[in-house]
């Protein structure tokens, strides 16, 4: 029992990926344990988003392995590099939730409809059941009154909260958050982060890419600093975000970051 809970839920091992001749991921390894919130920071172009997209196989990777709950992602097993069938991939992706920078709500469906689609088609729930679950999660993100609104009728912050509800309603094993506040006006960032914080308090396992350093510091169990496609530093927030960090790259990233954000 303690064995299972100590083993990493997400295990990324030596994952490399190139777009043509550009190496975007170089032998990246990281672990996320059940209930942990791990934040990836780093300069743009460092491969953060690509890594996140590899975890639910929105991107393929060239070598290495990614396992969720012991199960190889994307490929049948690490040795053969044989891509899983589309049906397998779909079933596997249903176990990971993802929230996107640009929300990516389905524009023709209401807030509730966005959440219900996966519940109905992937989880096989009845209309009434799906609706109940959708309403529950909309309530959790403070949008119970917007169930029947279309995405175009919602503010960015509201859309993103629906995006979060859509992902968590599927009861994923792990939630992937890809710069989910980057497209929001500053005054709307808080409402979205509050939702993420409450999910973390519930024990939701999360892997997130963010530029919100204050949030990363407060909410993360660990912070991963990526640079040039590789993991440059990993550690608890206090250690990584310390101004006197020993890692040269990290120090200059944080210095530049502070200069531009404060």
């Amino acid at each position, binding site marked *: 029992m303690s064995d299972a809970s100590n083993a990493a839920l997400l295990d990324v091992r030596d994952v490399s990926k190139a777009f043509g001749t550009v190496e975007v991921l170089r032998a990246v390894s990281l672990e996320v344990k059940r209930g942990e919130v791990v934040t990836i920071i780093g300069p743009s172009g460092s491969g953060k988003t690509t890594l996140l997209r590899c975890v639910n196989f929105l991107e393929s990777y060239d070598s290495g392995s990614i396992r969720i709950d012991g199960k190889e992602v994307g490929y049948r097993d690490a040795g053969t590099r044989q891509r899983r069938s589309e*049906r397998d991939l779909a079933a596997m992706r249903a176990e990971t*939730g993802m929230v996107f920078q640009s929300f990516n709500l389905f524009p*023709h469906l209401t807030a509730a409809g966005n959440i219900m689609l996966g519940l109905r088609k992937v989880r096989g729930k009845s209309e009434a059941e799906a609706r109940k679950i959708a309403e529950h999660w909309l309530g959790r993100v403070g949008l119970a009154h917007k169930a029947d609104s*279309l995405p175009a009728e919602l503010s960015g912050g509201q859309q993103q909260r629906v995006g979060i509800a859509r992902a968590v309603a599927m009861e994923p094993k792990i939630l992937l958050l890809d710069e989910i506040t980057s497209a929001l006006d500053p005054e709307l960032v808080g409402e979205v982060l509050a939702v993420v914080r409450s999910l973390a308090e519930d024990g939701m396992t999360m892997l997130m890419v963010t530029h919100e350093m204050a949030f990363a510091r407060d909410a993360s169990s660990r912070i991963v600093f990526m640079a040039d496609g590789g993991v440059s530093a990993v550690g608890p927030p206090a250690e990584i975000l310390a101004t006197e960090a020993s890692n040269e790259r990290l120090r200059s990233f944080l210095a530049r970051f502070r200069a531009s954000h404060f």
Partner: protein
Amino acid sequence: MGYTLNFNLIWRHFDKLWGGLLLSLELAVISIAIGIVIGLVLAVWYVSAGRVVRSIIAAYVEFIRNVPLILLVYLVFYGLPTVVDIAYSAPTSFVATLSLYSGAYLVEVFRSGLEAVPRGQLDAGKAIGLTPWQRLIHVRLPTMLRITLPALSNTFLSLFKDTSVASVISVPELTYGAQWINFNTFRIVEVYLVTTAMYLLTGYVLLFALRLVERRFRAAR
């Protein structure tokens, strides 16, 4: 100018025009319906297929788009039965031709619509675990439809007008009815005035109906 307009003969034979208009609409509706199926299937196939299939579909589209409709109508009605052992009535032959014709145009409309669906929406569909087929039905097609509706309305309208070409193989649609009255009464100005008005009016009604549909969908964007 010694010509005085006299519509009496036109009204006497108005059933030719009215019946013709109904047949025009019928030809258009059936052909467009078949064309939509052809267009959708080929467009979906195109965006997910390899290079060979793509070039075959592109060749079909290019062929149809670069040959005048009237020539296609002659080819299918007179040409095909002399080469292959098939027989069909003029209306059937025309419906087949206009279906292939509209199919080619609609492939283009649907293909560009499918390609215009934001990548992020497809990613979102993948991320919640939808299979490729489910993503197509529940994510890609609904958005594609919204994007292509204005172009679709225009295509439908021009296909309705294209039914007039059926007159060259004696399908008794509206233009054929007009010709018949002209040959039998010599009231050329009157009959074509009335016929023009009928095309115009029908076109407006169609356009109005299509715009209503568009607005309904746009409101739901």
